[in-house]
C-alpha cells in the first residue's frame, strides 16, 4: 500500500480524517463490550461504539468514492500504515477506567454534535449533509448520556470524584486538537462544505462548562496542548490499536467476512 499521495483532494483528506476519528474511537469504545460496570452501561457503550462505527463506514465509503481509485471502505479502514491514519490523539487514548472513557466520549461528542449540526444545516455537499442529518441526533444522545455520568461521578463519592478528576487531568490537554482541524478541513470550510473547527469552540466550551459546573469540577487551563494526529504523528497506543484492528487482514490478506 503506497502512501497517501499529496494530489488527493482536500475533501478526500478531510472526510478520511473524520472517518479515522470515528473508527478509532468506535474501536476503543467497543473494547468495553462485556466489561462495563453494569448491564445498562454495557449496552450503552456498545451502542455508542456502533453509532461511531456506522458513521465511520459512511465516511470511509464516501472517501473511497471521492478518491475513485478502486480502494474500498475496508481498504481505507484496514490497510493503511500508522502514519497514514489522521485521527486526533484524543480518540486513541486508552480506555482507562469508566470515568476516563465516559469523559473522552463527552469531549468528542460535545465537539461533533455542533460540527454535524453545522454540516447538516449549511454544507454544500449532499452526501455529508445526509450523514450529518443522523449523526447530529446520535451525538446529542452521547452528549446527554455521558454528560449525566460526568455529573454523577463528579458529584458522587470521594472515590468517583477522584476518578473523574484524574480523567480530566489526563485528557483535557488532548481536546485542543479538535479545534485545530487540519489544512484539508480548513480548505473544506472555505468551500462551505464543513464548519470551521475553531468556530465550534464556544459551543463545546459551553457544554463542558455547564456539565463540569453541575459535577463540581473545574475546567482546567491547557498550557501545552497535545497534537500531532492530523499529520499522522500518533501516541504509542495507536500501534497497539492497529495491531488488533488489522490482524485479520494482515494475516489473511483479502479475507472476506
Amino acid at each position, binding site marked *: 500500500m503506497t502512501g497517501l499521495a499529496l494530489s488527493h483532494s482536500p475533501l478526500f483528506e478531510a472526510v478520511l480524517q473524520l472517518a479515522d476519528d470515528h473508527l478509532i474511537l468506535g474501536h476503543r469504545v467497543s473494547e468495553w463490550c462485556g466489561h462495563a460496570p453494569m448491564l*445498562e452501561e454495557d449496552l450503552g457503550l456498545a451502542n455508542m461504539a*456502533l453509532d461511531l462505527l456506522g*458513521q465511520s463506514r459512511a465516511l470511509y465509503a464516501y472517501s473511497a468514492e471521492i478518491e475513485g481509485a478502486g480502494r474500498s471502505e475496508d481498504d481505507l479502514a484496514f490497510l493503511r500504515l500508522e502514519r497514514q491514519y489522521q485521527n486526533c490523539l484524543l480518540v486513541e487514548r486508552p480506555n482507562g477506567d469508566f470515568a476516563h472513557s465516559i469523559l473522552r466520549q463527552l469531549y468528542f461528542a460535545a465537539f461533533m454534535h455542533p460540527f454535524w449540526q453545522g454540516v447538516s444545516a449549511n454544507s454544500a455537499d*449532499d452526501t455529508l449533509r445526509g450523514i450529518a442529518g443522523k449523526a447530529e441526533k446520535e451525538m446529542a444522545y452521547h452528549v*446527554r448520556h455521558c454528560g449525566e455520568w460526568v455529573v454523577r461521578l463528579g458529584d458522587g463519592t470521594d472515590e468517583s470524584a477522584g476518578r473523574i478528576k484524574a480523567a480530566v487531568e489526563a485528557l483535557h490537554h488532548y481536546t485542543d486538537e479538535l479545534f485545530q482541524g487540519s489544512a484539508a478541513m480548513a480548505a473544506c470550510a472555505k468551500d462551505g462544505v464543513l464548519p470551521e473547527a475553531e468556530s465550534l469552540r464556544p459551543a463545546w466550551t459551553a457544554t463542558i462548562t455547564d456539565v463540569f459546573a453541575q459535577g463540581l469540577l473545574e475546567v482546567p487551563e491547557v498550557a501545552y496542548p497535545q497534537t500531532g494526529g492530523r499529520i499522522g504523528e500518533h501516541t504509542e497506543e495507536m500501534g497497539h490499536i492497529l495491531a488488533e484492528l488489522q490482524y485479520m487482514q494482515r494475516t489473511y490478506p483479502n479475507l472476506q467476512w
Partner: protein
Amino acid sequence: MPSTATTDNLDTARAWAAAAAVPDPEVPCVTVADLGILRDVAIEDGVAVAYVTPTYSGCPAVLAIEMAVEAALLDAGFEARIERVMSPAWTTDWITPEGCEKLRAYGIAPPVRGSSSKMALFGETAINCPRCGSADTQKVSEFGSTACKAHYTCKACAEPFDYFKCI
C-alpha cells in the same frame, strides 16, 4: 395491447408492491415501506431500481434489508438493483402512522413525532406504555437491545418495554 407507458406503470406498481412488503429483519412486524426507508422504486432501462435509505448510522441491518429487497424484486421476476440514498437523512418522522400502530401492537413504543425538536430528542416528552397506555413510565436506559431502541419500564403496569428511539 396497452401502451408502453401503461405497461411501465403497471410494472412499477408491481415492483413497488414486491419491495414494500419486505419486513424489517430486526423488527419483523413492520415493512420497509412502513419504516419509510423504501424511498422509491422505478423501472430504469428494464431494471427495477429500489431507492433505499439507511436508518440509524450503526444499524447492522442495512445490508440485510438491501439484500432482502433485491431478492423480493428478483422473486417477482424483475432484474433488480439497489441504490442507497444518503440525503436527505432518514428520520423516525418518516415511519407511517400504520407503522407506528404496528410497533405499538408488537410491544414497542413508537417514536415521538418531531424528531428535530430538542424535547423529543432528549426524552422530555411522555412515552406511553405500549401495553396499558399509561404515561407513567420511566427510562431505564438511553440505550437498549439494538441501536434503534431505548429501554423503559411502565410504573402503572410494571411492564418493561422498548421505545423506538427518535432521531
